[in-house]
């Protein structure tokens, strides 16, 4: 297997991008990556996208996006794993390069969520239709049940949840591409409108438009395109039961843990070696559960991490320096690639005010549904 590097990245702002269509956002992000590397033609393109079919009535993104990007003829296909689509697109691109099948591959993600579709209903199609969605449950409801279970089992409090939002907004306020790049106070979070108790509005990631792209190539060719490549040293993809009720422990995201173990083993690094991590905080409770499953904190101790500053910039392991899904925005299919770009830029030292000084090893973790699929990647500065 060849060693693989990321050599360039491109990303739109995240937000309600009413002036930009699905294809326009894709082209903006992908062409930024191509121009940064000075690349005219790629071998293949993987497009992480959860549900353009339901959001804007557009399927068959492979040929559409290849053509729009001026890459007609390239091997191109959409990759789907709900909100983990971007992470799985990155893994697919990695395997394409690592296997020797392709030399230049774009791993991208795009989602257009604000064109009028019933977003909650579309997202709910990532839950188990027979066991969950049929009964009316939506993702805020599923994550609220995880939060309740975590509170009951470990004594996690609503304030612990709120600290996750406060921290991520503090980080996001330093990210010019963030949808809600402003700080929020603990009081604002605690008083925000209840969505599905105990989750309040400011515990929940927003509905967003956006696209992100990274360019991959074999590590030994990377210096043709950049003098600061970042190597992908591990990838892990895992699944769990799609229905939350089928899991033995609602508070433990076993697919996240399994995807992390696979990535750690491949990379030969562990949680203690990480300098920075982007994890899937679609709801505040998700970040708490993910950092436990990733081994960044002990099982059951995730609640205190944000409050105690462990996961803040300057803490032991800064988590979601981009602002996370909460502050940066969550155009679902693009999220996994946007996380990758944050780590890419952190390891290159390009993050300005939110830079983790001297970051050498980083992690991204991107999940689908209520944690039924998870893609974890590890990166190292070259």
């Amino acid at each position, binding site marked *: 297997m060849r060693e693989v590097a990321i050599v360039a990245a491109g990303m739109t702002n995240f937000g*309600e991008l*009413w*002036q930009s269509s699905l294809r326009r956002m894709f082209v903006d992000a992908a062409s930024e990556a191509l121009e940064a590397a000075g690349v005219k033609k790629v071998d293949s393109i993987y497009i992480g996208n959860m549900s353009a079919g339901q959001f804007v009535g557009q399927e068959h993104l492979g040929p559409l996006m290849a053509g729009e990007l001026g890459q007609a003829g390239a091997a191109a296909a959409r990759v789907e794993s709900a909100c983990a689509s971007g992470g799985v697109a990155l893994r697919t691109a990695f395997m394409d390069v690592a296997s020797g099948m392709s030399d230049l591959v774009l791993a991208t993600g795009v989602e257009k969520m*604000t064109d*009028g579709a019933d977003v909650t209903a579309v997202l709910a199609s990532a839950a188990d239709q027979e066991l969950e969605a049929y009964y009316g449950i939506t993702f805020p409801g599923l994550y609220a049940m995880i939060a309740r279970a975590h509170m009951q089992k470990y004594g996690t409090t609503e304030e612990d949840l709120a600290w996750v939002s406060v921290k991520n907004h503090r980080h996001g306020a330093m990210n010019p591409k963030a949808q809600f790049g402003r700080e929020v106070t603990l009081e604002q979070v605690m*008083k925000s*409108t209840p969505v599905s108790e105990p989750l309040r509005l400011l515990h929940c990631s927003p509905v967003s438009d956006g696209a992100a792209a990274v360019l991959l190539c074999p590590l030994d060719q990377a210096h043709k395109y950049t003098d600061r490549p970042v190597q992908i040293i591990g990838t892990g993809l895992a699944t769990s039961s799609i229905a939350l009720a089928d899991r033995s422990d609602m508070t433990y995201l076993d697919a996240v843990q399994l995807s992390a173990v696979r990535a750690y083993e491949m990379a030969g690094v562990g949680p203690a070696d990480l300098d920075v991590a982007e994890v899937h905080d679609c709801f505040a409770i998700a970040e708490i559960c993910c950092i436990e499953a990733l081994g960044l904190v002990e099982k059951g101790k995730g609640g205190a991490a944000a409050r105690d500053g462990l996961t803040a910039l300057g803490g032991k392991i800064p988590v979601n320096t981009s602002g996370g899904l909460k502050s940066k925005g969550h155009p679902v299919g693009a999220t996994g690639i946007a996380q990758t770009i944050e780590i890419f830029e952190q390891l290159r030292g390009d993050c300005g005010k939110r830079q983790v000084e001297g970051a050498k090893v980083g992690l991204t973790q991107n999940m689908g549904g209520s944690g039924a699929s998870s893609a974890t990647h590890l990166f190292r500065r070259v």
Partner: protein
Amino acid sequence: MSGIVGYGAHVPRNRIKTEEIARQWGKDPEVIRKGLLLEEKSVPGLDEDTITISVEAARDAVARAGIDPARIGAVYIGSESHPYAVKPSGTVLIDALGIGPEVHVADFEFACKAGSEAMFVALGLVESGRVEYAMGVGADTSQGAPNDALEFSASAGGAAYIFGKNDLLAEVVETYSFTSDTPDFWRREGAFYPRHGGRFTGEPAYFKHVLAATRAILDKTGMKPADFRYVVFHMPNGKFPLQAGKTLGFKKEQFDTGWVVNTMGNTYSGSSPTGLAAILDVADPGDMILMTSFGSGAGSDSFVFKATDLLPKRRGRAKTLRSMLDGPRRYLTYGEYAKYREKIIVND
């Protein structure tokens, strides 16, 4: 010079408070009161609709004009709640007031800008010499779906303006219209409640059109914000007009008189026209007044008016808008409100 020769407004007596609507849906009333700056809104009675509101307002307009209604050659009612899908509202109004039958009548619709649209066309007919007097009315019994943000604002009321060339209460100094295809809010044929694009109704819709129309009319007249004593913009909630005004450099005191939304609600097609009526109720001769409407879909009409010496002499002939907002009111429970707005299905 053409201008306003008579005006009148009407707001129903029923009210519902923000707290009462919030209580029904488990929302925090403080968030609405502070976020949207809405305290209460007017609610039509069971026997009130766009036609009755228009007639009440038009009667007062005729009284202030002191003209024979038969000389009014055109009547246009702008509304998004005309009681009939097919059959004009205006025909009832002309018969009630003794206008016509030699009169041109039409009902207008342009979401919340239908009232200023009616005024715009009425003014044009007078200016052209086609008719001696023309009336433009904006009135609505606004629809807002239960538990939608609109439910806190959608209210009932309207204002009527008669345009002519002599004995003006306010001169029309300039007009300007700014329109584009912007689908921010709509109600399809047969649908009971409008739908909207959430925050899309803000920046690309309301603010884009209100700011553009207002900037253009300032440019066209060579006037500055400081030249106006009073300003009124369309009031979908309390916050938007003040925010737009601040962006343009207007001060809060220029808005205070016409900013009636906090206790009246959004009377849709009647919104900026009722605000203008509140201004004419108190303006001094020579005062400059700026009005910019907004209708979803989307467009804005801007008018610059100048109050005349005749205005203070005539306005006492009919009731002021403030007297209706601050006068006798009847507060409804949500249950009564639901009954009055025919949200409860009963057997025949």
